[in-house]
């Protein structure tokens, strides 16, 4: 059916245009001297310069990196351990539900739940509360990715190691971990990306004060309350950053990004 496939391919390319046009427009605009799409007045990187000069933006970026790094490290350790524990046996549906819940629950509901929780405990809010909250959904994603990797794991290799005289710990260190490492790394990169981009949970659990503002919170404020042209440069950088992380993750752990 050559005709049909030609139509299908045309449709596919239209879909790609639809998906990438907005992104490309933003990227183009970031280099527009005029800043807004009213007219193209020439190529300029001025807006990028203004970004770096703005202390609110740089401190927000710094905060975001801290939150993402710490929550990723915690979530990767817990999520990997969770995946290892769950993989040898068929998990009950309750356990499966628990592992999937953080990914399905609407982020606004999780956000208000966490806010209520912290308020009830009298917990002061700040970057630390964002970190604690981000770990929640990151655990689920890391666990899911590592579990996918473990599904094709040949457990007789673990027994072989023990048979050859290795202790449980040595076996984990020299056999299991190296074999699942690409999956763990990919999960970590994904968790990092999600944390960097996450807005609403951060918004609710950051508390007052600009010392705990993350980059998405600042972007939201910029969009809602005063669009300035730096935002296009900001958008471009953030997107390129995400793309790079995803591509690296895909490289390390072939096919996981599409499979999960």
């Amino acid at each position, binding site marked *: 059916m050559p005709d049909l496939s030609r139509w299908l391919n045309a449709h596919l390319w239209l879909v790609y245009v639809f998906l990438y046009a907005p992104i490309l427009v933003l990227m183009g605009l970031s280099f527009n001297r005029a800043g807004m799409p009213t007219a193209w007045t020439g190529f300029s990187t001025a807006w990028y310069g203004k970004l770096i000069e703005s202390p609110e933006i740089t401190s927000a970026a710094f905060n975001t990196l801290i939150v993402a790094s710490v929550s990723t490290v915690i979530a990767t350790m*817990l999520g990997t351990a969770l995946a*290892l*524990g769950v993989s040898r046996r068929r998990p009950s549906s309750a356990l499966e539900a628990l592992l999937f819940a953080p990914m399905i629950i609407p982020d606004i509901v999780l956000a208000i739940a966490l806010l209520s929780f912290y308020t009830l405990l009298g917990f002061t809010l700040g970057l630390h509360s964002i970190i604690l909250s981000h770990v929640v959904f990151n655990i689920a994603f890391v666990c899911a990715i590592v579990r996918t990797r473990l599904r094709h794991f040949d457990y007789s290799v673990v027994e072989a190691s023990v048979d050859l005289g290795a202790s449980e710990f040595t076996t984990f260190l020299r056999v299991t971990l190296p074999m699942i490492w690409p999956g763990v790394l990919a999960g970590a990169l994904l968790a990092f990306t999600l944390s960097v981009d996450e807005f609403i949970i951060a918004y609710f659990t950051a508390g007052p004060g600009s010392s705990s503002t993350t980059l998405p919170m600042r972007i939201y404020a910029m*969009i*809602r309350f005063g669009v300035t042209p730096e935002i296009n440069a900001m958008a471009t950088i953030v997107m390129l950053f995400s793309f790079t992380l995803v591509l690296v993750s895909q490289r390390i752990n072939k096919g996981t*990004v599409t499979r999960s």
Partner: protein
Amino acid sequence: MTPRLRSWLLMLPGIGWLTVFMIVPCLIVFFYSFFERGTYGGIDYIFGFQNFSRAAEPVYRTIFLTSARIALEATLIAVVVAYPAAYAISLAPKARQTRLLLLVMLPFWSNYLIRTYAWIVLLNREGLINRGLRGMGVIDEPLPILYNEFAVVTGLVYNYLPFVILAIYASIQRIDPSLREASEDLGAPGWRTFLRVTLPLTLPGVAAGAVFVFVLSIGNFITPDLLGGGRLQMVGNLIYDQFLSARDWPFGAAVSLVLIFIMMLLLFAQAAAVNRAQDHGRAA
């Protein structure tokens, strides 16, 4: 140490974290929904169902129905657009398929605030679409395509399209290719093979993807907030308002509960339908 004990020890920290930072907060929300808003925005611990009866009032019922309608529109459009795209990818040579899929998924992993903002740029009166259409002489006045339902649906479709494409693609891949060949061998032309064999067999996967998108759309906050211009209230915005402006946390909690309830209902219905489909036996 027995294997069982070791498994549980490994899972303990993760489960513990999820219990403390997800289950407990959700339980708190559950309990809050039965209480009342205190005079200064705190909580009055008076037990009752008033929040739920309030949620059933016409004002809020409309919000739920609007959210459902918008989510449904977005889901249907996404499915209709995604299916041919997924099919096209599945017809491509094996080596290219991974790359095509990756290209589809990349936007999905970028910041959703920014993706939504991009549509503000495109859709506003001075935005590219309007200026392009005016420049070509198609229209005289700029189209009001921002800060309304159209923009919100577009934004939702844009957000979730890659996911639906992936889900449908996976569903198509799972079909045994010899089934298509058998259909051809028995005399069916291409389109009939599609209608009678491929489509029915991929339907469960499509439905799963659709339910997922619907559930994600209905609880979405950012898209209606940024693209709806404050005029369009969906459930997500309602919850946000109750917690940050109206400071009626119990009511917000009740609304959240209703939202979760609807979601669970849909997910269970879908799981049940999948089970029934598997009982009827799929083509081996």
